[in-house]
């Protein structure tokens, strides 16, 4: 299977701080891949690099086998990019935003765009600046989807939306994507938003990729071990996190332990527990705190 999006050793440094470092992964064509990580993990930097509005300090990013460059418009034809800040011209009417999309893209499905927006009760004559945040997100998403891209890059598409708007937006998205076999790469702070819609998950923390895989394999590969405080049963498994609560110790490990000591329980963790374990885990030798690494998600501009 070819990769819709592939990064090799991708890094981006802002002055002395690495916002993203040595990032290697691939998003298979036709998949829905989510990336989760805390604020400042480098998610938005990664999206901007993939969209070609930023340039890597090191490594490469390719879209359908084609290297993304700052001034090429080639990769843009196959790409729909949803920026975290959802920039729109606030003085434009909704229909003028559609005209913008129609004029600047070689492929454009205006009828579908109008239909989506009317289903969402977004008035075409309204000024974009007078719409609610959720409606603005819908307009931005419509702009991405109406160009019928092969790859959708959605950076925090549902952030700052209320639960109903979140649901509506994801539903619009997934409905179209399923019809057309579009590859989707989307990010979120919360794994609970990604789990129902994604096939693959990438965990990004402290500017680095912690683990990637399908959601099934992530669930199958990890175990939650609970037992008495004392020596840890770590034969044949990789410890991801270890937490002490009272006289009990809770471990999250990768791999299936062959045998457990007396008093130990072997449980199936849920995806959220796995993600939290990876986010809490510090890189070996890393001496910085999780909270103050790198730049904010808004990114230096």
């Amino acid at each position, binding site marked *: 299977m070819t990769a819709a999006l592939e990064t090799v050793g991708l890094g981006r440094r802002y002055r002395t701080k690495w916002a993203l470092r040595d990032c290697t992964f691939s998003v298979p064509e036709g998949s829905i891949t989510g990336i989760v990580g805390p604020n400042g993990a480098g998610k938005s930097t990664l999206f901007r690099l993939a969209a070609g*509005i930023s340039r890597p300090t090191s490594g490469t990013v390719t879209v359908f086998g084609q290297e993304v460059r700052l*001034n090429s418009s080639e990769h843009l034809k196959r790409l729909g990019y949803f920026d975290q800040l959802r920039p729109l011209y606030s003085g434009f009417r909704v229909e003028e935003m559609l005209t913008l999309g129609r004029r*600047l893209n070689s492929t454009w499905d205006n009828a579908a765009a109008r239909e989506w927006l009317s289903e969402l009760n977004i008035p075409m004559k309204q000024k974009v600046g007078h719409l609610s945040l959720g409606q603005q997100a819908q307009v931005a998403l419509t702009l991405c989807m109406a160009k019928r891209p092969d790859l959708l890059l959605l950076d925090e598409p549902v952030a700052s939306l209320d639960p109903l708007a979140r649901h509506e937006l994801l539903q619009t998205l997934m409905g179209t994507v399923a019809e057309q076999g579009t590859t989707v790469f989307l990010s979120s702070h919360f794994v609970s938003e990604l789990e129902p819609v994604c096939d693959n998950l990438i965990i990004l923390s402290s500017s680095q990729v912690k683990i990637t895989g399908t959601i099934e394999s992530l669930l199958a590969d990890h175990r939650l071990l609970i037992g008495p405080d004392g020596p840890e049963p770590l034969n044949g498994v990789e410890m991801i996190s270890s937490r002490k609560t009272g006289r009990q110790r809770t471990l999250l490990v990768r791999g299936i332990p062959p045998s457990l000591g007396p008093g130990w329980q072997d449980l199936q963790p849920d995806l959220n527990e796995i993600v939290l374990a990876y986010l809490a885990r510090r890189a070996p030798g890393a001496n910085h705190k999780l909270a103050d690494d790198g730049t904010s998600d808004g990114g230096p501009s």
Partner: protein
Amino acid sequence: MIWLAWRRHRFLLALFAGLLVGLGVWMVLLAHAFDHASNVCRDQTYQCGFQYGVFSIENQATAINALLLFLPCLAGIVFGAPLVAGELEHYTNRLVWTQGISRTRWFVTKWLVVGLILGALTSLLVLITQYWSGHVFARLPLTLALNGRIQPTLFAVTGVAPVAYTLFAFSLGVALGAILRRTSWAVVGTVVGYTAVALLMVFSIRPSLASQGFLSTTRSTSVQYVTLPRPQPWILSYGFRFAPGTQPSTGASSASAIAKRCLNQSFTGSSYDQCLSTHDVQGGFFDQSATHYWALQWRETAIYLLSALVLLGMALWAVRRWRE
């Protein structure tokens, strides 16, 4: 992309056009008022001038002239500075640069659409200005200075140069905005930069863009005077030269050095004049003849347009290499 460039900037362009229309109407009204006053006051007495408000017309004309001088800079501030920087500040560059067209096309189209409209508006205003200055400045009976289009204040608002000034100021604002990435800094830079270039042009470059003339003074009793040709030339400076067709008699010394020596030797007028004439040195005014008007206009236009192209190149370079 042409649609987007027009849609983005049409409001301010319309506002700017409205401003120019207002200014144009004012100029036409003023020209008519002046025509009326000068028809009545053929004797050109001060009393008649007072009665028909010639002084007020003169003051208004000065104000209009000042506004016209500032217009290119205004275009640079309003349209140039935010053209790229405004998009970067609102992150809308992320929107347009991820549609289907390249940054180069985006930038060049924006520049062309806004630049061409500004150029056309300025050209129309210059036509009105020519009409107005022909009616007011050329015939003002009470104005001593500022006679003729060769004088710097009228030179800068007539002919073809104003269009080039506007495009230059616009490009300066665009380039500064693209490089500094802040509209406010680009505005300050445009005002400072445009003013500096305009002053440099008037004081250092334009005087030598065509060959200078020389008006030698003649002495009557204790007063030196010069007869100015009509139309009046642009007087550049007072200085000395060797009379045409003569060889400098003292080798390496310049005409002004000889004049200085003559002044040191004698303070009385007649012997000073004698000293100068024995050395074939003439005192007088260097000038640009009014007949050089179009030559100066075209050369200055070429300089400004070339500079605008260089600035356009710099802005394009900044846009192409900009990364978030």
